[in-house]
């Protein structure tokens, strides 16, 4: 029987299951754990959103969304998620409500913490920007003062006399420049300057200085580079225009006091507020960290549970509801050899759900072609995959996979044929095989590595066979080994220096070949 199983695909039978509605969930869960049945879809022409358990699937998707959100937050903080590799069972439907409540609570807490810290960060950003403004504007005001002095200078005021005909002295009282100070993203400054120049027709005076340290944007969390700017202008109309432009370029304006003393006072006040905010921010971050660490312990387990629940409901959607008898009818393909295990699974599922009526499974005769099921272990699985890539065999057809276990590596070795490289392949695959358990637990996502890891047994055999053919081809790292000595002898009498100087030399086997063959391999 087992010999036959290796040569052909398993004998399958179509079964019909009658499951009590309460027991159905638990039975499907048990069947899912053993993984030996393939259910047929009994409602093929029903739309996805008209099926029976569509609401439960929606709830599962909501839960998955919340878990994804939590995972994203955990990754953002760089907290490692505990991955014990154990396989929790799908929870019962009533536990689903508890899980939902837990996730809801966690999500709300995270959202609250996030919005609080966003508000705090925004505050912090404003204060930091204000601090930088107060520092940098010192130089600006000095320059503006000089500019103002220059305006008072009668030599320049003369130009205005010609245009306006007013007394330059009386006009100097009105030369007081208004100003706005603010902070803007560094990338926007050139465009901002041009816009200011155009709109105000060159009547404003812009000074800017970079803020060296990058600031953190409260919403996205990126660090951005900003610059302090200060605009001097005259007149109310220009002021409103400047304000509109600043709003358009998303520059934040700050009230900046004019005198030096006031600025120093404000700077001190700002520093103390920044200190306070820092402590509050620190505490908020700590709280958030604690919540996330607590969640990180369970999140992998929860994800698996939710996925299992969803899979169970997808499967239940394929069943036919027999309303009169309050039971679900399912059709599935299963291997004849495993019928006992399936019945056991059904029994334990019925027990677990506490239902009194046992679930029934009975075989059906059918003309449909059963699916092909090849039972594989971890060694033959790789070869089976290669064979299936060319085409899955028909039901009960001879399975080429057992033969390919030997022929595939042998043919590879015939083409490869290098002892040295073959040895390296063999040792690499041996490492993968010996460290199998650890590497599998790591669940490495890298596609190339997982290709090699999945084919470790194939590579092992390929390496071993390559060593053998390398010996026959006498090839080690593309060089030859002289194991048995050379069977060709060159007598110096016939092949002396003069003969060797000729254009073409033919080595006559008569005088040179000793006549015996090599035990194995090719001439070195």
């Amino acid at each position, binding site marked *: 029987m087992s010999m036959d199983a290796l040569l052909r695909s398993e004998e399958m039978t179509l079964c019909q299951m009658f499951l009590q509605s309460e027991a159905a969930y638990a039975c499907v869960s048990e069947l899912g754990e053993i993984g030996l049945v393939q259910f047929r879809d009994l409602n093929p022409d029903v739309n*996805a*959103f008209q099926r029976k358990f569509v609401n439960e699937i929606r709830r599962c998707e909501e839960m998955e*969304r919340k878990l994804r959100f939590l995972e994203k937050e955990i990754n953002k903080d760089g907290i490692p998620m505990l991955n014990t590799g154990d396989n929790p069972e799908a929870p019962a439907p009533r536990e689903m409500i508890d899980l939902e409540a837990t996730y809801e609570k966690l999500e709300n807490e995270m959202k609250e913490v996030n919005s609080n810290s966003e508000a705090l960060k925004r505050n912090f950003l404003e204060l930091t920007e204000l601090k930088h403004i107060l520092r940098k504007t010192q130089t600006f005001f000095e320059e503006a003062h000089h500019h103002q002095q220059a305006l008072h200078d009668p030599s320049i005021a003369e130009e205005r006399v010609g245009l306006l005909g007013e007394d330059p002295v009386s006009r100097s009282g009105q030369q007081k420049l208004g100003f706005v100070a603010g902070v803007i993203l560094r990338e926007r400054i050139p*465009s901002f300057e041009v816009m200011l120049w155009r709109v105000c027709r060159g009547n404003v005076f812009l000074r800017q200085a970079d803020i060296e340290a990058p600031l953190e944007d409260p919403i996205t969390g990126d660090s951005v580079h900003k610059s302090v700017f200060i605009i001097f202008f005259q007149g109310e109309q220009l002021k409103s225009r400047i304000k509109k432009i600043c709003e358009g370029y998303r520059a934040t304006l700050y009230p900046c006091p004019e005198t030096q003393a006031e600025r120093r006072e404000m700077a001190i006040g700002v520093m103390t507020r920044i200190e306070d905010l820092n402590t509050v921010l620190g505490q908020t971050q700590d709280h958030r960290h604690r919540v996330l660490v607590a969640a990180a312990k369970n999140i992998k387990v929860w994800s698996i549970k939710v996925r299992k629940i969803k899979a169970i409901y997808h499967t239940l959607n394929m069943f036919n509801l027999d309303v009169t008898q309050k039971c679900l009818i399912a059709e599935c393909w299963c291997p004849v050899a495993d019928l006992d295990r399936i019945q056991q699974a059904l029994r334990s599922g019925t027990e677990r759900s506490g239902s009194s009526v046992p679930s029934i499974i009975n075989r059906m005769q059918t003309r449909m072609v059963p699916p092909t099921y090849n039972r594989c272990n971890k060694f033959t699985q790789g070869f089976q995959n290669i064979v299936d890539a060319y085409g899955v065999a028909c039901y009960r057809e001879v399975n080429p996979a057992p033969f390919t276990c030997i022929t595939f590596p042998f043919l590879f070795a015939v083409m490869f044929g290098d002892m040295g490289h073959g040895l390296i392949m063999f040792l690499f695959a041996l490492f993968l095989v010996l460290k199998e358990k650890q590497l599998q637990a790591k669940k490495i996502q890298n596609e190339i590595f997982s290709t090699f890891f999945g084919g470790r047994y194939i590579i092992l055999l390929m390496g071993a066979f390559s060593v053998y053919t390398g010996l026959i081809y006498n090839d080690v790292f593309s060089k030859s080994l002289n194991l048995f000595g050379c069977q060709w002898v060159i007598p110096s009498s016939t092949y002396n220096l003069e003969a060797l100087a000729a254009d073409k030399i033919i080595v006559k086997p008569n005088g040179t070949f000793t006549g015996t063959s090599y035990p194995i391999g090719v001439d070195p």
Partner: protein
Amino acid sequence: MMPEISFNIDHGYLEGLLRGFKSGILKQADYLNLIQCETLDDLKLHLQSTDYGNFLANEPSPLTVSVIDDKLREKLVIEVEHMRNHALEPLSTFLDYIKYSYMIDNVILLITGTLHGRPIHELLPKCHPLGTFDQLAAINLANTSIMLYNAVLVDTPLAPYIKDCISAEDLDEMNVEIIRNTLYKSYLEDFYNFCKKQGGATADVMCEALAFDADRRAFIITINSFGTELSKEDRMKLYPRCGNLYPTGLKMLGECDDYDQVKAVADYYPQYKELFENSGSNPGDKTLEDKFFEHEVKLMKKAFMQQFQFGVFYAYIRLKEQENRNILWIGECVAQRHRAKIDSYIPIF
């Protein structure tokens, strides 16, 4: 001869990518499933099995049509931006031309919003992401169109288009529409000339598409101008001249006073005669706009028949827009439980 050989060197990847996107456009079977949805969640469930995938997956539970609208738009913007970032000349200029039409829409949106007194930070999120540029936010400063040009648009690619409509009048409702149409007319004619210069299959496909767009605008401007203060001379100035109607049809349209005269003008052109024939405002008829959309979809589908030309990019964006309009129409009908006209979408494939 030459374009076929050298097209793929620069643009092969993007055309291949684009045809992949095109095969993900919803088919008739998808629409049939969508109109059977009872709630917006059903809509989301069905869209998951299409090329849209899980684009709504992270939206919290009660879905609204505006959320779907945002996400649909975001998906299209990501695709177009990706293609634009990887494009070389002349495809990059071509894609920029497509973006200018969105810029014009954004500019007009902001001006109208400012006229109604809305603050700028409320209007900026409503702008289409494909049409943003730095100076956009400063639009609210412009009171007259001269200011609009001098201050805001002069450094943007839209500068040459506004030259035709500069005046010192203050911007108000009427002028804004005139500005929109004049901007669009200059843009369309410029785009048409660009495509014609490209020559080959691009010119074939695009010039036909842009000619239809120009004619459609001419008809719509004429019909909408009945009963307003727009004089006939002003109206003539708004017609784009790159369509099939130029020059005689436009002159005739300029003389029209009511809908029947417009229909008479359309009768001279076989493709437009058919569109006006079966449309009307009775219930059960398709409206004229719908017939125009249908004709556009037909033209855009034809664009994919030719290879090695840029028209496919334009066609994809237009078809995607139509698909988004369809999904939103169905979404609205579902959300408001008013299923009477739910199948008034325009089927694409």
